[in-house]
């Protein structure tokens, strides 16, 4: 439970920081790099989320469906 709540804060923190980086890079006039930074941040968060999702699906499968 402790770890689970920290995932939420992790994602929120990454989101805020990426938005900040995006804004700063856009102000500097580097639109493409800003888009790229957003994409990288999104992929990092996506990896975290997909880990959680696979964990959840494994749990559901082991509890309900009696396979692996």
């Amino acid at each position, binding site marked *: *439970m402790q770890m*689970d*709540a920290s*995932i*939420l*804060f992790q*994602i*929120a923190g*990454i*989101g*805020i920081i*990426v*938005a900040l980086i*995006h804004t700063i890079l856009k102000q500097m006039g580097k639109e493409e790099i800003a888009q790229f930074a*957003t994409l990288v*941040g*999104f992929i990092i*968060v*996506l990896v*975290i*989320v997909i880990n*959680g*999702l696979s*964990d*959840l*699906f494994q*749990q*559901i*499968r082991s*509890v*309900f*469906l*009696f396979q692996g």
Partner: protein
Amino acid sequence: MDIIQIVTLGIIASILYIVLKDLKGPFAFLIILVTGIVIFLVVIKQLGAIIQLIETLGQRATINGMYINTILKIIGIAYITELGANITKDAGLGAVAAKIELAGKVFILLLAIPIITAVIEAILNFIPST
């Protein structure tokens, strides 16, 4: 007191969502997704005990294991379908959510086929063949 933790988690997630919604990017949606996953994980840990209870009760009553297994599978499909449909609906894809729900219903019906046929067989046995 897991329920207090879950409610706190929901409130924190709402606050973070409101903060992230104004910033651009897909992170707000991922917050929703992770919150759903975390709450589901907490619930499913407790659900194991309930399912064990159901299984022991079924064994006590000497119910055929196939029926209980089917019912548990149906419950699992219902949970997963609900999760997927809700998340898809939150992302703004109402049509896809409806299709996911349709798929869940179809698969539940597919799993229930053996039970339905068993019921129909039983009914047919009651009716005297003329």
